[in-house]
């Protein structure tokens, strides 16, 4: 078995580590494609139901606090910046600066999840649960409001799972960085995780106006 690629050697079926890097990043892009199509299902459901029940969506968005949404947008955008910076620092061989930026990224992810937690809590407090746990039937104007919150929880929930996954992956590359496994010419994993993190940001960029702003 000569396929184990530790340190800076490349697996036996590649010509060079550059070849391996290109194949790896290509694989990550393809993976991002699958992520986008997976989320597309939710976006299509959103668009179709918004077409059928515009008034429900109008009522639903009033229950969401756009300030918290905007705060989360800024947090995620900032984490995207630090993620990009950490790759930059690895490439100019400044592992310490890269490490700090990775840790800030994780912290931002954590901050995002805390804000999400506060938001979810407020919804639950009003009985605005997803699906048949929805209990706020007395106060609402439109009977299918539960549908909006099902969409809200599915979309932000799946996105939240991706944020958590991203945090885990960043933690993993941070540990490998500490072990000195990355250098200016060997940073495929960090770049791949970075692409994933930017995609998570990208999806939020659409979720924010769709859920919090559009009326």
């Amino acid at each position, binding site marked *: 078995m000569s396929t184990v690629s530790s340190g800076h050697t490349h697996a036996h079926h590649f010509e060079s580590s550059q070849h391996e890097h290109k194949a790896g990043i290509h694989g990550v892009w393809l993976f991002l494609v699958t992520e986008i199509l997976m989320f597309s299902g939710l976006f299509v459901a959103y668009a179709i139901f918004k077409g059928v029940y515009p008034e429900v969506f109008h009522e639903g968005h009033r229950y969401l606090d756009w300030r918290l949404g905007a705060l989360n947008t800024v947090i995620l955008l900032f984490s995207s910046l630090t993620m990009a910076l950490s790759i930059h620092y690895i490439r100019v061989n400044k592992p310490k600066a890269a490490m700090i930026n990775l840790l800030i990224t994780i912290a931002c992810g954590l901050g995002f999840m805390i804000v999400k937690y506060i938001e979810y809590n407020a919804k639950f407090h009003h009985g605005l649960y*997803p699906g048949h746990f929805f209990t706020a039937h007395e106060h609402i104007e439109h009977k299918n409001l539960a549908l909006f919150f099902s969409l809200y929880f599915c979309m932000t929930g*799946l996105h939240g799972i991706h944020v958590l996954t991203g945090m885990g992956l960043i933690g993993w590359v941070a540990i490998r960085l500490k072990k000195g496994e990355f250098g200016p010419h060997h940073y495929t994993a960090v770049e791949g995780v970075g692409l994933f993190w930017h995609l998570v940001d990208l999806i939020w960029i659409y979720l924010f106006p769709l859920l919090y702003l559009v009326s």
Partner: protein
Amino acid sequence: MAHEHSTDYLHHGKGLWSWLTTLDHKRIGLMYMIAILTFFFFGGIFALLIRLELMHPGTQFMSPTVYNQVMTLHGTMMVFMVIIPGIPAFLGNFVLPIHLGAKDVAFPRLNLFSWYIFIAGALIAASAVVFGGVDTGWTFYTPYSIQTYKGTVFMVLGAFVMGFSSILTGLNFIVTVHKLRAPGMTMNRVPLFIWSIYSTAIIQVLATPVLAITLLLLVMERTLGIGFFDASLGGDPVLFQHFFWFYSHPAVYIMILPAMGIISELVVTFSRKVVFGYTAIAYSSIGIAAVSFLVWGHHMFVSGQSEFAGKIFSFITMLVGVPTAIKMFNWVSTMYKGSIRMDSPMLFAVGFMFLFAIGGVTGIFLATLSIDVHLHDTYFVVAHFHYVMVGGTLMALMGGIYYWFPKMFGKMFNETLARITFALIFLGFNITFFPQFIAGVQGMPRRYQDYIPEYEWLNRISTIGSWLIGAGFLLVLYVLIQGLRKGKPAGPNPWGAKTLEWTIPSPPPHENFTTTPVVSGGPYEYR
């Protein structure tokens, strides 16, 4: 490391553990083979049971409750566990890197991981039987799937997990085709099997994620009652059908495209002639893959979809017929002025073309709006997709297994018996499924445990045919095992084929090629 190059992949590492942890694409391919043949065995048993129950009207030995579960298990197993992974994950894994002149797929660990995901998904799906059963049919239409047995959740989760195996295999193959071709192996020199697997992989990567989210939403629908597909909560059951068929129609091409690739290889090798219209066959694969995403609505002509949508979908569906026709005509043209030998793989290839022609033209019936109104969800549809899936994909899979068997194991099977298996399967298939076209035209709906007496004679013929198919596949098993145990040494190139896998010993060495091959011409240069 010199000693490693001298052993073939079967003897490179010993014991079960060396197989379970292998990163060798050839071994992973064989592991898929074992899993898939096992599932195929069970799926086949279910099929025979279904036919036996339907031999006469009324209940024979399966109550409606049991019948519906057996019918569902047959469908889900055959679709998600046999036909979708069948050719790409098994033969694709074995052949694709060698065809490209590569030592392995791009991500060997991911490849092994995909196999484990596949097995895990299959086990979760199978556990549905224990946890309350599942009787939705393989389509999981809402709202029935929301209301029926609890086992549905496990089956849906199993299909969800197996979907990831499919996605990752497709991703792996795309990167391999893009990045690991041998020097000189340009895209217009790769064998046609690669083109078909490549097109399949594109569909797997683009469509399967939508299946994932659809099934996830279905699970949420059952556990949380999110209401997207439940009319009583304001949702739309027809929307589920859009979601489901956005994946499942392209999935039909995940099933048939790899089969077409195998047929291209077989026809060329056994006609000993350069392929006719390489470019047309190659690009028609990509064409089918692309158009397959635009036609899903033809499953929904009577579902409450709008007339306008039905019209658009009907016209686009007809477009799929064109690249398919191109392939058929080009294969027949390849045989023109060839030097044809009807060895068992070629018999299956010819059988494929015969059955796929019928399967294909009946697809045109179903794509025609007004005709489909009558034929939708009748036995005509059942016969049509069995002609394509069994008559197409399984015939090609059998041809592929016989064709690459000497390469996989270095041994030859009993040719006479192999030809008999073809005769049994081909005859049995036609006897089983042709009457179903007539039953369908006469209006017999599908998924019926019982039927009115008018249809009895057709069903009786059909059931008798199914026994022939069953006998044929049992004989296949015998031929393969006998070949493994007592087969004569095959030599590196028993069929006189031209593609790269036949330039290396049988069975191939662990690293495929001791020196990376350099390619200087097309794949089928018979001059």
